[in-house]
């Protein structure tokens, strides 16, 4: 156990063995990344909502995966490092999910965010047309319906209902 020293160079006896690649490998990964970038820019030009979301965010995830695996060498890193990063992403996801019922809606139990709500309506009418706009109208309507239901739902849940 006396070999706890480590040379100051890049190589050290305790370091997890890193797969050493040739430069060509990294250039190949870079080329794939650039190709993906081209897809993610051209995809939205079709102006189909599903395609836009898929090319924009699906490809971002793929690109992120490639960078993390090949450039950051997470594939040969100790497992706990990957787990650590995944846990942190999970916390962000937790924050997002638990906060979304409050922030994405413009209604709460005891409040209505009138100005945020009003800001939605004229903008949608003025700026949106075609398929996309219609889809958003439907969404907006659903949201409104939900919003209208929320206070009613909330009322019985007030003190007495919740107390036990």
């Amino acid at each position, binding site marked *: 156990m006396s070999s706890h*020293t480590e040379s100051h160079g890049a190589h050290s006896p305790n370091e997890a063995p890193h797969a050493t690649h040739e430069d060509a490998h990294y250039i190949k990964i870079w080329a794939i990344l650039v190709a993906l970038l081209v897809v993610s820019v051209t995809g939205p030009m079709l102006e189909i909502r599903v395609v836009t979301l898929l090319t924009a965010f699906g490809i971002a995830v793929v690109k992120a995966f490639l960078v993390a695996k090949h450039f950051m060498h997470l594939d040969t890193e100790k497992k706990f490092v990957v787990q650590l990063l995944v846990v942190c992403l999970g916390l962000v996801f937790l*924050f997002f999910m638990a906060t979304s*019922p*409050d922030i994405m809606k413009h209604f709460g139990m005891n409040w209505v*965010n009138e*100005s945020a709500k009003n800001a939605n309506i004229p903008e949608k009418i003025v700026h949106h047309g075609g398929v996309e706009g219609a889809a958003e109208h439907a969404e907006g309507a659903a949201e409104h319906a939900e919003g209208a239901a929320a206070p009613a739902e909330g009322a019985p849940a007030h003190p007495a209902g*919740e107390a036990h």
Partner: protein
Amino acid sequence: MAESHAHDAHAHDHHEEGWFKKYFWSTDHKMIAKQYLLTGMLLGAVGAYFAYVFRMQLAFPNKPVPGYGLVTGADYNALITNHGAVMIFWVAMPVLIAAFGNFLIPLMIGCDDMVFPRLNRLSYQIFLVSAIVLGASFLVEGGAFGGAWTAYPPLSAKAEYNLTPLGPSLWLIAVALEFVAFLLGGINFVTTAMNSRAPGMKAFDIPMAVWMIVIASILFMASVGPLIAGAFMLLFDQLLGTGFFDPDRGGDPVLWQHLFWFFGHPEVYVVLLPALGFVAEIITTFSRKKLFAYKTVLYTTIGTGVLSFFVWAHHQFIAGIDPRMANVFTVTTVLISIPIAEMCFVYIATLYGGSIRFAVPMLWALAFIAEFLVGGVTGIYLGASGADIYFHDTYFVVAHFHYTFFPIAIIGTFSGVTYWYPKMFGRHMNELWNKVHFWITIVGFNGIFIPLFMLGASGDHRRIFDYSNFPELATPELQQLRVFATVSLLVMLAIQPVFLINFFYSMFKGKKAEANPWNANTLEWQCPSPPPHGNFAVLPEVYRGPYEFSAPDRADDFWPQNSPT
């Protein structure tokens, strides 16, 4: 072999040091720990002074407070805000995590320093700057921030509302700097504990205090991010006029509450865990028993850490959050009392059948368990979303979190300081005066906050500075309770100089301490008191766990971790 070689070179390097280099520019973890400890104690005195001023105003309204003068409404708000912020961010954090983390981690895991000594120094310096910025916020036009330590917008976002144009921004910058300091410190602690343990020290040989400080640092690093982002957003709202938290412009003030409490609740456990770690060290040493169920405590701690990320919205039950979420958060909040209760039981089980010695650190440790239990139990009332509607923002809440934070930040600190004082300074404190200080502090503390529970249950709202406009709260019965609490505070504050004099006097004139005055097992007691630069003459190897007390076939009732036989 190579190790001891490098070590010699290291020790030689630091023989000739100027005063400035030794006390202010040092990279030695023990000196940085002392810097944090003394800065924390100084700011603790500031926070206590704030409490003194606003408690005097509450008990004897609109009479000049000796040592301050007449308290205006704006003064009162600034005082309560900064009392809370100072006590949590500039007292509990630097003392419990930074001071003890710096002092204990390298010593307890048997190495010569932190892994990044210069980063460590930088961390303290940023912390010091943050304290200075906070102090500066009292001197600017309009005065210090008065929007409570939670800084909820819109009150904190617009000068039209809070009437302090500069205070909130300086306050926010100070808090953000403080976070940066502890992020740097936390990375250092975690990396040190993970990588630099003495040969032979496996996961279950690590003393509980180190585990707890490390888990607390991880909790801090994992939870503070959204609030740092939120601090940027709030700062832009204040200085540039953006509308992140302004409902009139499409923003959402509830978002700030989520960002704040996503950090704010794990923060409670960030400061709680180190104190629980000190208690574990102390009760094993002074009852001469193995820690009951070491692994259970460890897994429970990790479980607490995980659960602490799922409870934050219980601070927002009446903020208009989605009632379905309130149900979920009620359940998780009540659940988290289980691991904490379990830890208290484990500590009590450790005491069972031990040969207990009521030394001063032990008194503090036992008081910690007793007082924290009260804080924990009253938390269950507040965790239930239905009951919380009535208790929210009353003095019941104030009393509840002081019954958790006082044991953590004050009792925990005193237990740690009195236990490790011989190691830090190589001398003993006066035991008699420490006991006097202990009893008066504990009685005084309960005298302050038991009346506040009663006030809160009577509906006393916590943010009122002058009750003359609230006839139903200005009754003589309630006022008597307020006076009782304030008088108890005065008694408690009056005894603190005894501790301070003892602390500084013993540093130079106390009885000399040997290396292992309490006959403890952990590695910090196996090097000289105070430890020299580089800590150990020969870096230790570890052969067993930290709590091997009263082993049957040994002459000594303790068994140091580094003793081969």
